């Protein structure tokens, strides 16, 4: 009998548990959960505010999932030390839990820049967890004026979630466009227009110089008065446990394709890690839910002595705001970097396919996103575009663009 410890209780942890149990039905699994909730769907917190889901439906797995998986969960405790010599995890109450293998699935934490006067703001919130969300919900009413710092995924999701529940929302960002990590200028403008049409105001290329109570003084000289502040500037991977144990850490915990860290018997998965992005050709933090699950499952299988690799991670997102949907994947190389772009535009839709060295490296599709997964799969599988009819495929996501043999494999074989 072995003992596996999982630090964290999010999606990567769920993947890890399911990975371990696919190989080892009996050994002990102990999950250390700082949050006092069973695993839930973190990206749904904005849908919760919008009334499109509730706390019960937000549960990622069934109520008896830990029992079924024969796991013990320690709620409300934080792992503070990874003792690699003793092979144990030390909790904040001093408890020490020995492990044969451990998975660090500690997630990320909101990053709050040291704004001047931030301490004078009474109602300020992050937007990462259920507890953040419930606290924010209890602070708002129909008359609230909300200022959101950050026009990324977290900030904009929060804005849409709050839209019908407050009087006024302003979103500011240092960047000159919304969703700057996943959209280029023109695409960002399309999304921004849709969000603005729905009554949300933006202050882009601007940031807060100082706060004084319920007023934000901006660098541009403008002022914003608000009742509730949401800080969605960015997140930082929780790397401290591995870093303090002298494991390799960059912006995230460094893992190989088996999700091993540089420390023996220590694995890591999810938003706290930095994995290899095949479209970027380098390691980077890919803080998306599918990645967390797939890394977690891979880690779990390997921890339990099975064999798994996860070697085709890419950034990818499916997001919609006020009925306008966008899907993005991969890396968008410009001409200067040897990339080429194919573009289709019509009113309300935009499609951009980015190719380089005979491969599809990324795409942005707005307004019309049917069958986008066919493109995602070309990126993940690094399909050589000269083996298919990409001139057709880039226009229409159809399997006519593949050879008959390839189609036989896809639709005639067991998968």
């Amino acid at each position: 009998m072995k003992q596996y410890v999982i630090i964290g209780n999010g999606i990567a942890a769920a993947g890890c548990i399911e990975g371990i149990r696919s190989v080892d039905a009996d050994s002990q699994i102990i999950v250390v959960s700082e949050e006092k909730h069973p695993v839930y769907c973190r990206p749904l917190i904005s849908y919760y505010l919008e009334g499109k889901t509730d706390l019960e439906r937000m549960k990622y797995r069934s109520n008896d999932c830990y029992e079924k998986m024969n796991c013990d969960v320690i709620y409300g405790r934080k792992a503070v030390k990874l003792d690699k010599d003793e092979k144990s995890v030390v909790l904040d109450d001093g408890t020490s839990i020995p492990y044969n293998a451990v998975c660090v699935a500690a997630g990320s934490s909101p990053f709050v820049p040291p704004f001047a006067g931030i301490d004078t703001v009474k109602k300020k919130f992050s937007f990462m967890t259920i507890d953040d969300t419930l606290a924010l919900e209890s602070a708002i009413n129909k008359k609230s004026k909300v200022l959101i710092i950050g026009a990324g995924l977290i900030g904009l999701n929060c804005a849409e979630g709050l839209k019908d529940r407050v009087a006024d929302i302003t979103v500011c960002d240092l960047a000159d466009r919304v969703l700057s990590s996943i959209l280029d200028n023109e695409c960002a403008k399309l999304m921004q227009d849709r969000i603005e049409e729905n009554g949300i105001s933006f202050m882009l290329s601007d940031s807060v110089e100082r706060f004084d109570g319920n007023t934000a003084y901006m660098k541009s000289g403008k002022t914003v008065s608000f009742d509730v502040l949401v800080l969605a500037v960015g997140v930082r991977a929780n790397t401290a446990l591995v870093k303090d144990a002298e494991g390799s850490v960059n912006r995230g915990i460094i893992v190989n394709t088996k999700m091993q860290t540089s420390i023996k018997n220590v694995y890591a998965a999810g938003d706290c890690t930095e994995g290899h992005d095949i479209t970027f050709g380098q390691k980077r933090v890919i803080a998306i839910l599918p990645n967390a699950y797939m890394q977690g499952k891979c880690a779990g299988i390997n921890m339990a002595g099975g064999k798994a690799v996860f070697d085709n991670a890419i950034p990818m997102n499916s997001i919609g705001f006020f009925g306008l949907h966008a899907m993005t994947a991969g890396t968008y190389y410009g001409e200067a970097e040897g990339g080429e772009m194919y573009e289709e535009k019509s009113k309300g839709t935009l499609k951009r396919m980015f190719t380089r060295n005979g491969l599809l490296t990324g795409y942005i599709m707005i307004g019309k996103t049917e069958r986008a997964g066919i493109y995602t799969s070309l990126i993940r599988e690094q399909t050589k575009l000269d083996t298919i009819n990409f001139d057709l495929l880039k226009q229409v996501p159809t399997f006519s663009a593949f050879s008959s043999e390839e189609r036989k494999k896809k639709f005639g074989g067991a998968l």
Partner: protein
Amino acid sequence: MKRVYVNEEWCLGCHLCEYNCAFANSGEIDMSKALKGKPVFPRVKIDGDEHINFAVSCRHCDDPICVKSCISGALSVNNGVIQIDHNKCVKCLTCILVCPYGAVSEGEHGIVQKCELCVENSCGEPACVKGCPNRAIVYEER
């Protein structure tokens, strides 16, 4: 497990599979009442060009990326069949973002839909296969 497999050389491109699918999942007992004059949202779709046609539906992958990517826990595998829980689905469309077969789609009112091999409707076995006039799709073990 039994799956729907495609014999593309036999497909006539008649789209009957699409109509049978939409009917089987409509909950109606009368086909014309279910489909006549209405937009249909089949879970199997004819793909192809002027030379060749083939029906595309969920492959029920052994290691399904849609399930692993689902942000709401709405997709799950039950006895090998990939099913969607509409009560949990928030229509984020991440499954459409990742399905390599383009086999998940938005149905009526933006509901996310996919082939569930007719296990949830009264047909009991894939209606698309049952109604195919040329055995261009079959339901069998391979």
